């Protein structure tokens, strides 16, 4: 119960932050939305009660986010250049790469980081491998170097 109240409190705060209006209509809509979402989450938990914990080393995670940002900028410049070039020079391919991160959370971070970097999209992710669609030979090679996977694996513990 305490968990549910805390959850509704967080949702309510978020509503007020995002809306910024305090008229009865808006606050009323907020109350209804928060109640609805809390109910939905309660029912979903009954179907799938697994609890996921966000256990990462936060300082290392901050460093990783900065590193990822640099990769995202680089990849963006690369794909934008391809889009502007008069001649299309794509060499799209599917590649399979061993997923180095071992925990579920680590693999989710890895898969999302790959997709967040333009030029590579995670198509499939399982216990052993990630299957990735790459836009060019270079973007595939960058992934196959394994630098990203190693960095994510370092975050786990």
């Amino acid at each position, binding site marked *: 119960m305490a968990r549910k109240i805390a959850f509704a409190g967080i949702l309510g705060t978020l509503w007020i932050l995002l809306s*910024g209006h305090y008229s009865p209509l808006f606050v009323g809509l907020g109350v209804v939305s928060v109640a609805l979402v809390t109910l939905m989450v309660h029912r979903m938990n009954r179907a799938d009660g697994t609890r996921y914990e966000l256990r990462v080393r936060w300082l290392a995670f901050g460093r990783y986010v900065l590193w990822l940002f640099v990769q995202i900028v680089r990849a*963006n410049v690369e794909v934008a250049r391809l889009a502007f070039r008069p001649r299309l020079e794509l*060499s*799209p391919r599917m590649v399979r790469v061993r997923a180095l991160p071992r925990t579920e959370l680590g693999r989710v971070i890895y898969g999302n980081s790959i997709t967040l970097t333009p*030029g590579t999209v995670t198509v499939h992710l399982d216990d052993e491998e990630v299957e990735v*669609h790459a836009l060019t030979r270079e973007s595939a090679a960058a992934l196959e170097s394994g630098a990203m996977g190693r960095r994510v694996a370092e975050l786990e513990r």
Partner: protein
Amino acid sequence: MPDILADLLLGIGILFTLAGSLGMLRFPDFYTRLHAAGVTETLGMIAIVTGLMLKTESSGTLVRLVFIGVFMLVTVPIASHALAKAARHGGVRPALREEE
């Protein structure tokens, strides 16, 4: 000074959003277009949202922009992955070029 920086960031955002749109039109198949959309959703979005953060004078708007940016960065890859996975399971064959 922050105003020039804000304009610069908005300009960068426009440039990358344009690149993404252009790629959407020019790239040959579903999967390659997904990469083009990624340009708009990542750097295009980040640059425009940060530019707006520097321009706004209301702290409420600033907080909202931070939320928008963070939510986008967390949800965008999940949506792209869902699309790619759905396309693959639906049997959309990627146009592949394996030279050499």
